[in-house]
């Protein structure tokens, strides 16, 4: 048969047919594609032979080509070839494992490609995350991500002799207009900060311009990499330029990577000012205060969160101190929490029992049992990275979301993913032959519900290799409480040869 070269046929239609043809078993694919291509030609040239009908519009031709997928699916479903493809079969344990491994690799790859997910996977960028604490007023204990400390309090703490802290740093998030590339004015999220902020966090800003700005007592502006690209088009000569920020002239001294800032509020830039300039802020201005704990305090105070009382204006105020290690929730800790929750909730969604399997049976010797348990463990081991990376991808796909929103998304996605996938793993395990680990087929109803107390009533499934039959009771009874495996001896095997098994499509 000669394939007619189709001229004047839109490539999109041919591409659709070509894609659909991959669903057709290879032996029938060529003929199937030839028929559909010929029919498509007639669909597109209908007007030339029947002018009164009118020309075929693009939508009609696309609808025609979409039908090819249904036809191809029919071939796929009813072809004997798809039923006897050896080891590469959907119901086999190996194929199930390969599919899960590929899915795990795909989710990991996506996580590495998504900038938000990649930075979340990295370790905390702060070396002293245990000795650095974020201080907030006690009244907002549960949310250390809201600025509560006034500049007045910060100033007083710095001047006072401290037992618990060696140093403090302050930053106040503001919104300010900056003239960006091509003289466009844009609004940026800026942290007006004390000039020791980056030193305390040990973020490397090695720049001669910074030293020069400090020497001249000028405010220094540090940009995030994202803001540098977005608002200044990645201008390589930006460092050293003077910009007007929040009513004062600041020198751009450096650009830092986006991953280096993980404290509350997403920032585009940091305006580093000396204490003298910070005093110019109104006394009631609130911001975040970062404290560096002394070694003694580090040894005596509990890790994570702790409380302190400080005298202020003749009264004692309560403050909460949250270490950066506690504040920057690692995705792995969220995942472990949801994993625990999912394990607790699992028995409410599906029975944990895998059924009764006769241990004395000759075919179910120890190696087979270990293989069965090994398969379950492999499934669970592959599910964990799929859910972990999958929930991370979902949480950090949108980089404009606030960190807390991303954490909530990860929490929900991770819990749902763990619960549903564990449920699937158990249900899948229960429906597999314990010997060859293939999915059991041909479910058949046996017995009558009305005679449940007189005879067995439920569903019977069989292994297509003749290893046995699985009896799943409709109702749990004293003689049949859970699904039960009936092992068949090898003499039954001849009845279960695959060649003699009826094709599901012929029913």
């Amino acid at each position, binding site marked *: 048969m000669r394939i007619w070269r189709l001229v004047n046929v839109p490539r999109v239609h041919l591409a659709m047919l070509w894609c659909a043809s991959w669903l057709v078993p290879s032996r029938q694919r060529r003929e199937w594609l030839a028929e559909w291509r010929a*029919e498509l*030609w007639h669909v597109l*040239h209908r007007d030339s032979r029947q002018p009164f009908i009118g020309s075929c519009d693009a939508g009609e031709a696309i609808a025609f080509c979409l*039908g*090819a997928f249904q036809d191809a699916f*029919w071939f796929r479903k009813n072809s004997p070839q798809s039923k006897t493809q050896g080891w590469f079969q959907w119901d086999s344990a190996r194929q199930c494992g390969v599919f899960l491994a590929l899915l795990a690799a795909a989710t990991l790859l996506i996580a590495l490609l998504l900038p938000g997910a990649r930075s979340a996977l990295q370790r905390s960028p702060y070396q002293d995350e245990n000795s650095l604490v974020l201080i907030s007023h006690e009244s907002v204990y549960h949310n250390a991500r809201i600025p509560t400390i006034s500049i007045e309090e910060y100033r007083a703490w710095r001047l006072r002799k401290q037992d618990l802290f060696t140093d403090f740093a302050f930053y106040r998030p503001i919104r300010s207009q900056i003239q960006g590339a091509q003289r466009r004015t844009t609004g940026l999220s800026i942290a007006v900060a004390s000039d020791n902020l980056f030193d305390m966090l040990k973020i490397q800003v090695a720049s001669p311009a910074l030293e020069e700005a400090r020497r001249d007592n000028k405010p220094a502006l540090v940009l995030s990499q994202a803001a540098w690209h977005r608002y200044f088009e990645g201008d390589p000569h930006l460092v050293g330029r003077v910009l007007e920020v929040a009513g004062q002239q600041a020198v751009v001294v450096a650009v830092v990577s986006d991953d280096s800032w993980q404290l509350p509020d997403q920032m585009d830039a940091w305006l580093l000012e000396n204490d003298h300039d910070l005093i110019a802020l109104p006394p009631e201005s609130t911001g975040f205060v970062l404290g560096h704990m002394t070694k003694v305090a580090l040894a005596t105070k509990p890790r994570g969160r702790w409380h302190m009382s400080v005298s202020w204006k003749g009264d004692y105020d309560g403050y909460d101190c949250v270490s950066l290690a506690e504040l920057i929730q690692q995705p792995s800790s969220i995942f472990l929490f949801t994993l625990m929750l999912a394990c607790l909730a699992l028995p409410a969604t599906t029975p944990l029992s895998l059924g009764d399997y006769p241990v004395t049976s000759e075919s179910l010797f120890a190696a087979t049992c270990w293989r069965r348990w090994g398969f379950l463990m492999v499934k669970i081991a592959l599910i964990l990275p799929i859910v972990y990376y999958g929930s991370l991808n979902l949480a950090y796909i949108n980089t404009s979301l606030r960190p807390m929103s991303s954490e909530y998304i990860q929490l929900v996605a991770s819990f749902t993913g763990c619960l549903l996938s564990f449920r699937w793993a158990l249900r899948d395990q229960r429906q597999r032959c314990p010997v060859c680990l293939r999915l059991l087929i041909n479910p058949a109803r046996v017995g009558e519900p009305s005679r449940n107390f007189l005879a067995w009533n439920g569903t019977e499934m069989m292994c297509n290799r003749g290893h046995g039959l699985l009896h799943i009771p409709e109702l749990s009874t004293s003689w049949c409480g859970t699904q039960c495996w009936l092992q068949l001896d090898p003499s039954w095997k001849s009845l279960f040869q695959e060649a003699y098994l009826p094709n599901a499509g012929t029913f």
Partner: protein
Amino acid sequence: MAVESKLSHTAAIILQAIHAGYIYGFGVMEMTGLPSGTVYPAMRRLERDELIRSYWEQQSIADAEQRPLRKYYKLTRAGKATLEASQKRYPLLTRLVPSPEVKQA
């Protein structure tokens, strides 16, 4: 092959259309108004049940008309018997798609 009782109305219309001379998939689509996703899988089922048979037209005819080679379908003996039974079951079938004999009359 006794499959008359299993033939759906859609399958009966397609069988009737092929009998009426619409012997390729797109022709059946135009006659019946059914979409391609229904017509072609239905014709596969009819062919599997040996009610219709497919064959490729001669290359020379397609070459002479400057078009790709086309696959045609025709009723088998079992298909004709099934169609007769379906016409009794669905009396409006011959009105929807007139048989060649009716058209000639």
